[in-house]
């Protein structure tokens, strides 16, 4: 499933490493980064079909990262996965091209369903 890989962008190291290992275990190629800067570099260099994006990052605002990713690779399915529920932030994200908006914590099985949905609607 290397043709469909997931980039996990979140500043919580523990969360990122666990999620990446879980995704790999269930057959989803995935990598994790802890900052917005790294995320943009990864998207530019690699081939990620989905990005799971936290909105609170140490170096950049999540919505800025979202816009940058959409510029570099508009095909990317971005799923916002945030611990800071905010309707306005979510609306802005969807307007700027996010594929879905989820509030942490999400059951792993639910997340897999969302990834499946992203895969099915992948261009």
């Amino acid at each position, binding site marked *: 499933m290397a043709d469909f890989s997931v980039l996990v962008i979140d500043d*919580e190291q*523990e*969360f990122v490493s*666990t999620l990446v*290992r*879980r995704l790999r*275990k269930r057959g989803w190629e995935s990598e994790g980064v802890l900052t917005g800067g790294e995320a943009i570099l990864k998207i530019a260099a690699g081939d990620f079909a989905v990005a799971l994006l936290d909105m609170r990052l140490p170096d950049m605002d999540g919505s800025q990262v979202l816009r940058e990713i959409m510029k570099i690779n508009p095909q990317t399915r971005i799923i916002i996965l*945030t*611990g*800071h*529920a*905010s*309707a306005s932030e*979510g*609306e802005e994200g*969807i307007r700027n091209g996010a594929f*879905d*908006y*989820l*509030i*942490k*914590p999400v*059951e*792993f*099985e639910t997340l897999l369903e969302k990834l499946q949905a992203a895969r099915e609607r992948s261009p």
Partner: protein
Amino acid sequence: MQDHSMTSLFDRLTSLFRSKPRLKPAELQAAFRSHYKEFRSLLTANNNALELMAEMEQVLSAGHSFGMAFIRGNCTALTVNIYKMIQHLNRLADGRYAELDQPFRDVTRRLEQVIASRPVITEGVMILSMAEVDSSMVDQVGEKMANLGEVRNRVGLRTPDGFVMTAAAGRHFTQANDLQVEINRRLKGLDLDNLEELYTVSAGIQSLIANAPLPKELEQEILAHHQQLVIDKDPELLVALRSSAIGEDRSNVSFAGQYRTQLNVSSEFVGQAYKEIVAGKYKSQAIVYRQQRGFRHQDVHMCVGCLRMVDAAISGVLYSRAPDDPRSRFVMIQAAPGLAGNVVDGSAATEQFRVSRTAPYDILGRQSGAGQVGGGVGSLLTLTAVQAAELAEVGVRLEEHFGTPQDIEWSIDQAGLLYILQSRPLGRPAAEESSWPRQHDSKEDDLPPPLLAGGVCASRGVGCGPVFTVRSSLDLLRFPKGAVLVVETPYPDWASLLDRASAVISETGQMAAHLATVAREFGIPAIFGMKQALAALDNHSLITVDATAAKVYEGRVEPLLALAPPRPNLMVGSPVYKILVAAMEYITPLNLTDPASPFFRPESCLTLHDLTRYCHEKAVVEMFKFGERYGFNDKAAKQLVVDAPSQWWVIDLDDGFSPDFDPASRYVDLGHIVSVPMLAIWQGMTAFPWAGPPPVSLRGFGSIIFQSTRNPGLDPGVRSAMAAKNYFLISRNFCNLSVRLGYHFALVEANLGEFLTENYVNFQFKGGAADENRRLLRIGLIADILNEFGFRVEQKADAMTARIEKKPGSFLLERLKILGYLIIHTRQIDMVMGDEGMVAQYRQKIMTDLQTFLEKPETAEMEE
């Protein structure tokens, strides 16, 4: 220092007691003023205390949800106010009520014991094998796992192998990381109505818990037990981790789907999954749910079952009776291919069976999610007759074993073996069967044609509100209060909206879905499996949902809404509710009813209400005793002369009389009174002549006599003698008027100062001679009128307080006139209040009078 000079003054005065102290008027005034200050503070504390008590009583009957914070906060505030009353009374009476200290301590100590009531202490081993668990271990492994152990070890049915991480394990984990303080800090002051805040705080707490490391010894024990589940040839063991909260599934409380379950967990993630499920105690919907149902966070402990995954061919839910009819003669089965989770999370299309409860357990009916199955090609055929019979027998057996209808989750594996995954008491529908018919009586032709019809009734009832479609977490954050929740799939996550929704419509799902269970528990009407709902219902359009008939109408349909049963009081019987009820034992009962009784003593005070009553009564006595002692009846209290000496007495506290008034005079006329608030009240009192007592019907009069014989407190003669005179205590900007007219007691206090923030008018009204119903009608009438004039009115039983604060003087003067009028003209009208027509008639007359004199406010100035 002031206390010292006060004491010496008292000493001096006491020695002169017999020959009446000859104080200079200025000294007398100063002493009186300082006492009066204490008295006023005592009255304020008294009012606060009574209001707090009324609020607590109201919360018990109204069915609003409340938490421990409410109970603790109110009890603390109450205690503080009563402590203040005792302090003020002692200062008024030179410390002569020191013996109040003991009953106060006793009552508050008992109250504290009730409120602090011990959370369950969970001792014992951190891990128990399922082979060792039975229902006696509820406090170690939680309801869900205790029941499952019972099913396995006592009933002898097949359940998945596994083990439980007990409450002791959870406590060890939380304590080792010192999490509780931080969790409590984040929960404090959380506004449950603010969904963004709720979700953010919930996410933060869960991540705090999920990221904390497992203590080494616990991690090792978990791994060791996990290893034992591996059977030789297992390529890789997958387990399900299931929450099993202590406090969950008890009585009628399902906590359905509130906590987390993780399926297909491989060995390396067991520790992480365990932490996440422990963290699930703080899922947003669980926080809301506990608040609504009256559970304390501290009493809920998260235990976690770790069970080998069943390689399921078919799964589902089995009700030993129909969920909406506990007397049904059949079991009900929902079945779907695959895992049981698909059935309860509402996502799978299921087939429903009704199977006889007696051998040979015939199938009485089957229905697919799409409607009746006619046995046609392609229809879902999940269970064979043999499997259905096996399930029915199991359902009946479990019901017999547990003694109550059961809600059972099950799976049949690829080898055809039946596994029980969970068995719990079937939640009762919130509305009582008898009061809520299965079918409406209202005739179809009374109703407009429905917008939509179809699907199943997942929770009965009728609701009305604007449509709000929820497709994502984003919509969830924007869900308005009172809207109709319209969804495609009834995910358990939407449960956090049920305290805001007036009804639920889902395109898919059936009555076994967790969301349906919670809807039934909360008494929220719900239709599931209603096709095309999303397309047919416009967002924000107003609809009426008749869940009982599975129909949706445009707009408000009053005939249907009139049939809706009241929302159940969800708090009744819950732990928090019980604590408040227990606390109220030491708060509201009034044992000191008769001040003339020899039992009217500090030792007789068994409740906070007794203490307030005692302090209040004694403060009034002390206040007037002061006057008697220093002769203020002779010197300070002047009898008001209008045409002739009246029943009204006036005491000048400061500058309420004009400078040319002769202090030696025993009388005062209106011309010498410069107290602005007093003059306004007086004007209201005298604007219209009182028509005299209303004509009393024989029945009304009989009721008065009956009340008088039963309640000696009604006779003014029995009460403190000094209360029989009516006093105005005045200064230029201040007036306190206490009135005992006939059988009722009224108190007006007003301050109209230089600063808007200090301005207020307070009015209290209590009592009456007639029976309770008539008194309540009168209070209702007065409250109604005052409300109309902008007073903040609070009423409890036959007592009422009304107040206005921080308004300009001119506005308050008008209000004082109204109060003056009401004090005079509502005298004894309670006696005729049995008659609704009379109420309306009085209301009409009062409003006309008030409008007449409020239209010419200049008369006030003219009189001055």
